[in-house]
């Protein structure tokens, strides 16, 4: 399963929906839900996490190379799709790791279906409203200049800002599909469900809320508040990482996540 080439193009079928999926490693099952963008199959954190767990990383409908069925266009659809995925996987319980936008999905899924979840990890997750009505919690990635979004996304923007001139056609097409899909699902209310905050108490599984210390898309204080709403959860930060600690600090990220999953 560690052959990257073989892993690309694999599919996960749920009823009539087919998802592109990356699979790595063996052991305790982990369903990882991606964030603003699909996970690069060559991202180092995948192999690192694959040494400690069986990692299943689907691309949400409309993202990456996953088709989006007609009228499948809300977070409600995504949550129910992943409830189906949980039922379809051959494990009684699965750990759920949600990154950013995928963290919102993971929180919704865990609130709805705690009994199928082993452990929950929310990483720089969206999904709730914390501050007052005139203070946005989450940077508006659509109405902000792309440059400023990059500045806020990374601890080291210089190193990680994508250079479209260096990407392949397929990578750019994927980037554009991700952007459209993210907007479709998350435009309004912008990246949160006003009701979710009240139901986070239903998450009755061990939960780690993990944050990039330099996240300028959604700050660590939001993560702390998120964690306070999930009974018994713990909060931790990854140093020298922005909104994507799994990319900027893969070793520290995997160490922290795997240690939690193995607790």
């Amino acid at each position, binding site marked *: 399963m560690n052959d990257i080439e073989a892993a690309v193009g694999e599919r996960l079928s749920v009823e009539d929906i087919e998802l592109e999926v990356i699979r790595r490693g063996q052991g305790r099952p982990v369903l990882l839900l991606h964030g603003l963008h699909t996970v690069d199959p060559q991202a180092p954190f995948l192999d690192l996490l694959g040494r400690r767990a069986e990692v299943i990383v689907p691309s949400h409908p409309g993202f990456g190379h996953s088709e989006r069925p007609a009228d499948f266009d809300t977070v409600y659809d995504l949550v129910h799709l992943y409830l189906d995925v949980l039922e379809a996987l051959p494990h009684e319980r699965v750990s759920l790791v949600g990154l950013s936008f995928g963290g919102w999905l993971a929180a919704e899924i865990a609130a709805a279906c705690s009994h199928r979840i082993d452990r929950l990890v929310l990483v720089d997750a969206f999904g709730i409203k914390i501050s007052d009505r005139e203070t946005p919690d989450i940077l508006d990635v659509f109405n902000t200049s792309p440059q400023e979004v990059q500045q806020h996304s990374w601890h080291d923007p210089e190193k990680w800002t994508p250079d479209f001139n260096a990407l392949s056609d397929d990578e*750019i097409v994927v980037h554009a599909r991700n952007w459209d899909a993210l907007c479709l699902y998350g435009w309004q209310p912008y990246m949160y469900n006003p009701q979710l905050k009240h139901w986070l108490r239903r998450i009755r599984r061990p939960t780690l809320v993990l944050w990039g210390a330099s996240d300028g898309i959604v700050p660590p204080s939001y993560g702390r508040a998120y964690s306070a709403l999930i009974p018994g959860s713990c909060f931790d930060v990854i140093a020298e990482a922005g909104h994507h600690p799994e990319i900027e600090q893969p070793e520290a990220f995997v160490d922290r996540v795997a240690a939690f999953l193995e607790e």
Partner: protein
Amino acid sequence: MEVWYHNENPYPFVPPDVLDCADSVRASLPNKYCDPQIAADLFEETFDEFMLCDERGINVVAIEHHAGINSLFGANPLVLGILARQIRKVRILSMGTLISLRPDPVRVAEEYATADVISRGRLDIGFVKSGASEMASNNANPVTNIERYWEAIDLVTKALTFQEGPFSWEGKHYTHRHVNIWPRPWQQPHPPLWAATGDPETAREVGRRGMVNVLVLRGEEGTRRAWSAYRQAREEAGLPEVMTDHFAYAALVYVGATHEEGVEIGSKLLWFLNTSLKMAPQYAQFLPGATPPHFAPQVYRTASGPDTPAKGPTDGSRAQQAQANKPAAPAILNVGGLTNIDTAQAMARGILFAGSPATVYQQIMDFYRKVGGFGHLVMIGRSGFMTHAEAEKGIRLFARDVLPRLKEIAPVTPP
């Protein structure tokens, strides 16, 4: 041919250094730069121009754009309400309440029916697809914009025509359980419907619906392409051919006493293209849904664009260089090269008709023949720093020496 006067009521009086530094002159330029006293003068002048048109037999157009120097007509229904009462003879085209931005199309239908009744049946209703910075200004999801556009048109049309209400609408984007507008429109079954679009796919649907298809500054090639898609879609659907009165072309138009004067003053209209289109990339090529993903490699990598804002990191980084290479205008306009166009190019491409009465008539008719004919000319007669006096002079000359000749052109079946 019918002629329509169009003045977006722009607000050009923002200091140039502010405009140069801003990454966008729409959506994000703070309204502290809009002096309400100047704005009041501009409204007054524009309404006076519309009333002059009324006197001289030129129909009028009220558009809608939000939060930018290109237009102060953000509240189209208000403008329309004033015109419905003050304009006494000619027709009034709302182009339009930007329908996909409004949460309740039933309310829009109510506004349109009211304007149609007040004007005693002189309203034309235009639907503009919107997009770009309007999405941010109106909190409108760009990805589902076109879906909302068509559903809203369906709902408005039913609200205008259904007389045995209330009826219920439970669509994908709009739900309204008790639709029954009062008054109903004056014109039966409803006022003429227009749609502004240049993309062939949308033009096909406009064609199937038999709406008036207005093309704005598209030039010969883009216009022919859209209208041919319109006609082809009708043919494929087994619908009867339509006459040229189903096609409208909007261009910058200015008539002076002499050719030289017309060109000189008319060139001021290019401000619309050169200055008012400057838009940040998040409202343009990176706006979700703006570009089909398979075109993304071309659009994302697009280099150059001299009107690009120089904002952001100034450390010579790759990020900075990449930013500097990104065009500032909507991809579609950049592709057409409209943002840096000069007078000669604009005239050669059928974007600007300017000169004396005789040469303007000639330019319009040359274009008319090139695109297979149209029944409506929308003249964008004032923009940028053109003065009110200049605009009124142009209207008078056009009305006296060009309009009568255009009026003689009856609708025909396109060749």
